[in-house]
Every structure is written in C-alpha cells, then in structure tokens.
C-alpha cells in the first residue's frame, strides 16, 4: 500500500499581478496554494515558503457561514483573529463589491454570484499583499463569472494574486503569468502581448490557447 503524495520540485515567485496556475486534477495546484497559506496539506514539504503572515483567501466554496449575516461573514476573519470588528470598513467593502444594502441579508437569500462577492469582500477585509484564489469562479455561470473576474481584478489590483484554475481561457484572460503544473514540474507558459484582462479577440490569444490545450491534453 502506498499512502501519500509523491513530492515534486517547485519554485514559484509571486510578483504583484496575477499568476495563474493550471494543470490536471491532482497535480498539486491546491497543495501549493495551501502551503503558501500555511494550511495543512497532508504532504511533506522540504523547503521555504516566503509568504506574508496573513493572506486573502477565496476557495471554490464561498465558505459563507449560514447563521451569520452578510456583514457578519465579512467580519468573521477579524472575529476569529480576536481583533475588534471594523463594521464601517466592512460595509464600505460591501459597497465596492456591489452589495450595498445587503449587509443584513442571510447568505441563503443570495445568488451564487452574490455569495462569491461576499467572499471577495471577506478576502479584501484582510488587506493582505498576497491573495490566494482556489477556483473561486468555477461554479458560476458564464456571465457572472466574467463580472466576478473583472471585479476581483479591479479590487485586488496592486497585490500579488495566485489563481488556481482548471480553465485555460480564464488563465489566459486574467494572468500576468501563467504556469502549468504537470508531472511534478512548474512550467511558465507563453502569453499574448496584450495586458490582462485580455479580450478573446486579442492577437495571439487563440494561438496561446491552442498551445496550452495541447500541453494539457498531452
């Protein structure tokens, strides 16, 4: 019997801007994210993680707590950390993610897109230089996903963002850098010259997409 994960060599620098991590399921994308966040991974890691003590975190599951109001969910990080909850700032952040007037709603009365907006506001509450995003947009419908991508880019501007995704188009639209994680190796992928967010019509995008797909399907 074999129990555990095979170790892989990985070196990843995270400059300000969006770094996207693509790769097949089980390649270890989420493990890298969790290592950076200081969360348990069930694997052994020999090496050095240089990450800020506090990070902004968004998962595929919005992790909204059903018994707390929208405002309560945004304040949850501060409450857990034992610091004084800053409600005015949380309300201001809810305004900036387009949820003004919804502070007192319960999560179960929100749509999937609205719930991820709350999760974004909760992540922004940390005001951390590093944001770790584990497929936060993958469960959203196409239109909502695009609006959330644009909102997240706008709100997280100036920070280092690491986005784990299954979706090559998402990576090519948002990434300042795109890395492919496969067979225990991180490989930087070529990107179109335009700055993100890239339109589907931007020159070189189709070729980059095709190159990525070829590597993913290999």
């Amino acid at each position: 019997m074999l129990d555990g994960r095979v170790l892989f060599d990985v070196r990843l620098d995270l400059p300000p801007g969006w770094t996207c991590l693509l790769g097949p399921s089980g390649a270890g994308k989420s493990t890298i994210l969790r290592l950076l966040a200081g969360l348990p991974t069930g694997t052994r890691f020999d090496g050095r993680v240089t990450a800020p003590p506090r990070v902004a975190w968004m998962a595929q599951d919005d992790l909204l707590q059903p018994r707390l109001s929208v405002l309560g969910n945004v304040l949850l990080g501060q409450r857990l950390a034992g610091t004084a909850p800053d409600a005015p700032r949380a309300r201001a952040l809810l305004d900036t993610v387009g949820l003004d007037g919804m502070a007192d709603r319960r999560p179960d009365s929100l749509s999937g897109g609205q719930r991820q907006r709350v999760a974004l506001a909760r992540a922004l509450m940390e005001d951390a230089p590093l944001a770790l995003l584990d497929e936060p947009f993958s469960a959203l419908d196409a239109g909502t996903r695009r609006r959330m991508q644009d909102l997240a880019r706008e709100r997280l501007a100036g920070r280092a963002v690491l986005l784990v995704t299954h979706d090559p188009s998402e990576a090519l639209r948002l990434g300042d850098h795109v890395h492919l994680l496969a067979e225990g190796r991180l490989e930087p992928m070529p990107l179109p010259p335009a700055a993100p967010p890239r339109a589907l019509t931007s020159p070189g995008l189709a070729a980059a997409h095709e190159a990525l797909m070829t590597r993913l399907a290999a």
Partner: protein
Amino acid sequence: MKALVSAVALIGLWQAIVSLTGVPAFILPGPRAVAEAALANAAMLSANAGVTAAEIAAGLVLGCVAGVAAALAMTLSHWASRLLRPVLVASQSVPVFALAPILTLWLGYGMGAKVAVVVLIVVFPVASALHDGLTATPAAALDLARLARASRLDTLIWLRLPHALPHLGAALRIAAVYAPIGAVIGEWVGASAGLGHLMLVSNARMKTDLMFAALAVLAVLTLGLRAAVDAALRRLEM
C-alpha cells in the same frame, strides 16, 4: 389535529376493549372511569404533577447545562477530553436507571434523588451529541480559522458551535423525552410525592382508575414539555 384524531382513536379502541372483553375495572378501567377519577382527585393530581414537573425541570436544566459544559470543555482542552471521553463511552453501556436506588440511598426520599436521576439521564446524551457536533465542523470552514490564526475559543464560538447547533437541538429534544422517565423512576424507587409515587400508591390500594389518571397526566406533561422544547428550539433555528 392529527394528534387529536389519533388520541380519539386510541380512546375509542380502549373503550372497545373494555366493553367487549368485560375485563374487571381493577385490571383495566374504562376511559370514563379514569376521567371521573381524574376529576374527583384533580387537586391531588395537580399537586403531585407539580412535584414531578419541578423535578423534571430542575433535572433537565442542570443536566443540559452540565452536558453542554462537558462538551465545550472537551473541545477546548485535551485534558478534559482525555478525562471525560471514557466516562461518556462508559455511560452508554451502563443503564443509568440502575443507579436510582443508590441515589435514593444517598440523597434521601426528597426531590434531590429524582433530580439527580434526571441529570444523569440527560447529561450524557447531551454532552456526547454536542461533542460530536463540535468535532464535525467542515474542514474548509476550519481553514478560515487557521488563516486568521484563531484561538481555540474563537474557533469554538464562531465556527464550531454554530455548526454544532443542529446536533445540540436533536440532543435537547431527546433530553426532553428522557427527563420525565428519569423523574418517575426516581419516584418509584422511593418518594413521598409525585405522579410516580401516586401511581404506586394507587396500585397498592387497587385504585386502578386513579393510577391511570396519574399516567394520563404524566403523558400530557411529557407531550407538553416536548412541544415546548421543540417550539423554543425552532425559534433558535436548531
């Protein structure tokens, strides 16, 4: 409404058995005889019901508080967990009712022994269910606590406890059903008042109709308690 229909059907069946078999009244009195006995002894029944209700209420409150405290302590402290977990496991294999005679021996014939039996019956299921709930918090939610470097106490208050409330609600509903059983058994072992005591005394004097009346009052008391606890827990979304 449904409950009323089944109650009427049950009383009808009872009357039918009495009428058809001609069973003597000291074995099985009819509904009418029981109702008459209840009315004739209303003052005595309500006085004894008051005693039993007080035992149930005191035992339920103390048992739930102790059970919740034990579960919280086990979640917050490794030492408490190591100390209490074997007790919880053992308590499920020992019939707590069997301790009633010992408790009566130690605490006497008053309310203390009955309250103690109720506490013992209530405390373990509550502690056990709440502790299960507190340790079943989804891992992804606990990630939020780790990211915030939350203390055990803050994690308990903001994540573990809210996720455990349905477990606690289920345990409290069961406790409300168990508590009257504990009080009556305590009274059977030795008492000078209470519905269980009244049942024994009526039985000894062949006043079967009064014994049934006491039983009916106990059933109403238990159903009322269950409904009240259920309504309160619903308000709290548990």
